[in-house]
């Protein structure tokens, strides 16, 4: 089946997303150097997940003061995290289900199973959480947090990054 990208989007938002006004002019592509079964996978969500202890929550007050702005920073989530360790800060989705089961957006448990079954080489020790609502120009992601993330992945020996927008 072809997925309807707008099925769950409020009708008034549809025009905003139907046609991308300024798409990139080129493709980017890196061929995997090894099969998935030998690769280390890291996961990234934009659901605003963070640790209750040890992480600053995403800056929701800053967004309330300036509705055009969203906190562009990210948090590193250890693979051994438990449901009780996590909470979510996000003003654009209902976080209730994330508080019950973070795997709906950051699928650590399914990837542990893929690891144990040998479908992937390894699940990385660290994963990444952003808060998805951002200023339209995405300048902080493009110029700072994105390159910082890419450097972190390289240092960590990650072979593949899986991203899941919230």
């Amino acid at each position, binding site marked *: 089946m072809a997925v309807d990208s707008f099925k769950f989007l409020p009708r008034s938002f549809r025009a905003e997303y139907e*046609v991308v006004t300024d798409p990139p002019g080129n493709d980017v592509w890196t061929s*995997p150097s090894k099969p998935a079964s030998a690769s280390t996978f890291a996961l990234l969500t934009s659901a605003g997940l963070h640790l209750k202890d040890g992480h600053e929550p995403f800056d929701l007050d800053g967004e309330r003061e300036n509705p055009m702005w969203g906190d562009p920073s990210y948090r590193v989530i250890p693979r051994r995290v438990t449901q009780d360790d996590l909470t979510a800060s996000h003003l654009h989705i209902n976080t209730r289900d994330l508080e019950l089961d973070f795997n709906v957006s950051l699928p650590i448990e399914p990837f542990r199973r893929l690891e144990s079954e040998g479908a992937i080489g390894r699940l990385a020790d660290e994963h990444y959480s952003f808060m998805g609502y951002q200023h339209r120009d995405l300048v902080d992601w493009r110029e700072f947090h*994105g390159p910082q993330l890419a450097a972190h992945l390289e240092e960590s020996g990650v072979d593949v990054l899986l991203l899941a927008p919230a």
Partner: protein
Amino acid sequence: MPVLARLVEASGVPTVTVTMMPDVATQMRTPRVVGVEFPFGHAFGMVGDRDMQFRVARAAVDLIDTAATPGTRVDLDIEWPQDPKQAYKEWQPPMPSPIVQVFLDRLAESRAAAREASEGRRTGD
């Protein structure tokens, strides 16, 4: 999110993106896309449904081995097992987000202005 996927891909790490809006991801030239027809905030499925979550995760992993060209998209044939109207309502935050509230306030203002103009015409003001 396509911006981050492209940036990481360009740095030399292959990416795969699981998204509820694959049309947008493809237009943004996201390298590998798995489309799911799920409510926002639930890219891997229902709370506690490990089989559904695993199926989506497995599809993403498989795409790393099978995709040969930029823009490869696979849509998953998984129906959200909940009434769409209920799912639509439940994914949304309890309060409108700040930017949505700004738009709602503007809409209310323009409707009020239109109403005043219309009443003015009726009373001959």
